[in-house]
């Protein structure tokens, strides 16, 4: 039994170490952003005239608005497509087609963001630019993000739909509801919590996505006035400027990273709460 105790000890220290990594990440983000949080006026992130780090103007708002707009746009497009995909797999497709399409969605989920970005850059951007130059724009970012979060929404919605108890379906059939009547009146309300949790997680993924957006969005710091304006998101800004940032500038980039992480953590806490309520 000595070996058991030794093993438990070793495993416990391993688990402790992996739990501490999260804490370590938070500590280092705070440590690196401390100079900016204490040394610069915090209101400056909202009210500075522009984002010109070399002249100590650190207005994060244009990039925050671009990040939010791109994510909201992607969610608006991906939610109907994702839920339709899940409904197709569970209710509409013959079984072999359903498993084939499910594989396709899973493979789509495995394509790396840099490849989506590359494809967007070589195919989507020229297409948009023919229609409304310059092409690299908020719209391109929205479309690429849609492709990236669609599989996530479809897979979570599929799991939620498949978990709806058969009794409900049988009752609906006994009441003579039509197929769409069953789906809209019975199945979707029953699966609502799971589907919403999936959508929130997808939103978190869209907020934090870097490479694909960086490659297609044009990276001009501005509040976009239309879908065809180039924009720069918070994550893309970190990737662009981290290489040469020094002093306060570097510290402000860590602040924006911290902001991004807090946003994502709040969203995933919301999704966790929803999941918990579903099981009660």
């Amino acid at each position: 039994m000595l070996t058991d105790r030794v093993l438990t000890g070793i495993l416990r220290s391993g688990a402790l170490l992996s739990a501490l990594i999260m804490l370590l990440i938070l500590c280092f983000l705070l440590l690196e952003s401390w100079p900016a949080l204490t040394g610069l006026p915090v209101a400056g992130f909202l009210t500075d005239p522009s984002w010109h780090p070399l002249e100590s103007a650190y207005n994060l708002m244009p990039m925050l608005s671009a990040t939010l707009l791109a994510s909201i746009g992607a969610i608006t497009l991906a939610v109907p497509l994702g839920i339709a995909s899940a409904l197709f797999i569970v209710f509409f497709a013959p079984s072999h087609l359903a498993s084939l399409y499910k594989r396709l969605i899973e493979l789509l989920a495995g394509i790396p963001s840099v490849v989506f970005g590359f494809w967007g850059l070589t195919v989507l951007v020229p297409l948009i630019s023919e229609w409304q130059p310059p092409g690299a724009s908020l719209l391109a970012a929205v479309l690429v993000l849609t492709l990236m979060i669609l599989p996530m929404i479809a897979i979570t919605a599929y799991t939620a739909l498949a978990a709806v108890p058969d009794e409900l379906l049988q009752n609906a059939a006994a009441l003579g509801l039509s197929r769409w009547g069953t789906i809209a009146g019975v199945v979707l309300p029953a699966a609502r919590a799971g589907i919403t949790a999936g959508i929130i997680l997808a939103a978190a993924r869209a907020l934090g996505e870097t490479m694909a957006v960086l490659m297609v969005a044009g990276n001009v710091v501005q509040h976009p006035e239309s879908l065809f304006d180039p924009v720069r998101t918070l994550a893309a800004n970190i990737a662009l400027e981290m290489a040469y940032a020094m002093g306060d500038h570097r510290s402000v980039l860590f602040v924006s990273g911290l902001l991004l992480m807090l946003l994502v953590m709040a969203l995933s806490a919301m999704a966790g709460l929803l999941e918990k309520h579903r099981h009660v």
Partner: protein
Amino acid sequence: MFESAALRTRRKIRDCVAQGLIYLAVMLVSLVFFWLLVDLARGGMTHLSWAFLTESPRDAGRAGGIASILVSTLLILLVALVAAIPLAWSTAILLAELVPAESSFGRSVRFSLHVLAGVPSIVFGLFGNAFFSIYLGLGFSILSGGLTLACMLLPILTSTAEAGLRAVPDSYRLSAAALGLSRTAALTHLILPAAAPALAAGLLIGIGRALAETAALLFTSGYVDRMPGSLLDSGRALALHIFDLSMNVPGGDESAYASALMLVILLLCINILAMKLAYGLQRKKIMT
């Protein structure tokens, strides 16, 4: 009577419209997926050859191949796995086998990993740069890139392994206890072998995630495209190579296409293998 007939036709029309819209959405998604694949295949096929895989890049990647890039990618992956697997699997074994699911220790470890799973990859990049590259003094190196990736892989490896261990039937544990085996012996001879396919599937998913990663490596493993001499050299990962070729190197499109095709083929193979393992598991569970 008349009204119910009208109602019925209205319902029928609504059903048809809904079905049509859903089929349209599905067709759109499949179409875009195949468009992407065909486009990559057409752009990359002409340039992808054995020579491309075995030569080092020349002229910032416009000419030559990706040999040194592949070596760097492999080394980063190895470092990440060597660092992450012991931690992840010991955490999973502890959570699934040795502490009660609702204990405060188990719950806090699981919560911490859950939060870690949601952290955006660019934030991992920031952390890796501040901690591994600067605080620990590893600089822009394969080692700091690999360790950053290890932090990223930790939650996914742990959760897949824990699920796999929990899927091993309790009768195994009871029989082992009845035979007087110690928990260590039961674990090494019985439970881990039974959970091996699930562990392998999780490992493949983790490898796929690591190969696809770009943002976390940007400021940790660096940009240098020479053949790495040691783990402390900077090395460029394949995904980063695609990014650099398409954004910073005019005329690098052909090589970028070929590298992207290479990466997608690798990932498709890994994902299909992982799916096969996972589906095989389900089938076995139904059979017994």
